[in-house]
């Protein structure tokens, strides 16, 4: 299998790798680069566990080929905390007990981050819509929705 060069910015750091052509971004991140925060769930685009942000847009890393990400800026959940301080969304997920097994959590947080980046004070319906591509089999969703709303409130209080 031919190796192809791929360069992108991952969580603020420049990455340059040679990967097998056809490698998904999910596999490149987890197996080659060592960022295991995106989870491989269904590999079918259904569960959202592998969600990452590419150039500001929510994308599914299991359905994205790494070599198509040349020159892009990629954010994963492992890049959210700064200097050991959790991102408000991460803090809110802990505070509202929005994680149980935790497998869906990175994808949920990525979907929520894109929402709050564009809509800092979302309605409950907007949160539900934003998370509609992410499946959780533990929480019943309500704590997750509350976590996103809590993070939004925390953001608006910090901005005030």
């Amino acid at each position: 299998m031919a190796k192809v060069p791929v360069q992108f910015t991952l969580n603020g750091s420049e990455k340059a790798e040679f990967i097998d052509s056809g490698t998904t971004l999910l596999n490149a991140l987890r197996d080659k680069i060592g960022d295991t925060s995106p989870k491989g769930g269904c590999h079918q685009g259904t569960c959202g566990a592998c969600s990452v942000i590419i150039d500001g847009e929510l994308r599914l890393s299991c359905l994205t080929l790494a070599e198509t990400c040349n020159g892009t800026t990629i954010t994963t959940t492992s890049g959210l905390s700064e200097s050991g301080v959790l991102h408000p969304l991460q803090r809110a997920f802990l505070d509202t007990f929005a994680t149980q097994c935790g497998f869906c959590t990175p994808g949920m947080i990525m979907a929520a981050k894109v929402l709050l980046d564009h809509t800092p004070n979302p309605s409950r319906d907007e949160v539900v819509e934003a998370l509609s591509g992410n499946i959780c089999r533990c929480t019943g969703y309500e704590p997750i929705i509350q976590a996103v709303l809590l993070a939004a409130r925390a953001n608006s209080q910090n901005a005030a």
Partner: protein
Amino acid sequence: MALALQTFPTVKDANSALKAAGTRYLGGGTLVIRAANEGDVSVSSLVRSTDPALSAIAVAGGKVRIGASVTMAAIARLPDLGALAKAARAVGGPAIRNMATVGGNLFAPAPYGDFAVALLALDATISTDDGELPIETFLAKRDGSRVIVTSVSFTLPKADGFRFLKVSRVKPKGVSMLSIAAVLERAADGTVSSARIALGCMADRPIRARAAEKAIEGKTLDRDGIAPALAAATEGIAPITDPIASAWYRAEVLPVHLGRLLLT
């Protein structure tokens, strides 16, 4: 997965490479990478084109041309295409809508392909590297197609002339139990002067409800007026059966949902 991806600056070059056995075109990846991940060994290599025209949207004089690589999210956020936003938002969740393309949706088998249902009702023209085809002809031949779709074009419907409904069990995002799109034109007296009604999940690909279209013409959009169309709605359908619904159930509820759409 062992796939080799070739990227070409022009559609013409990508089209040549696509002729090789086992080669599939990569648009947004929501169909072909999914298939490869699922273990579809018929996919051995991929081609794509970075031609900027594939990502262009042109709206002028009531005519619309959408490049095949334009995503559902891009359509949903463009005010000029507000009439189609509901159909674009019917495709997957936010991440899928950021990836799924107009061109890819034309190839999506039922229960997917909700946007293609809308395009069928709009009587779109499909442009490929080999020329143009009416959407109905294109959909009929799509399984054996080895050409790259470059764009879709259609006439924008009047503000209240286009209707779309997706029915699913999971809200707000779920796989289609069925989807219906309709382009209705009305005469001065309020009766329907022409109708194009397209159905999703009522075959393995979007189909027209021709009997219902004929039955609604000349009628008013009230309970009595639409009754003949609802009675004719199931004519010629062959619904799919999947974990969401059986063919029998889909056929049973089609007239109910068509009625709701027409009375909207």
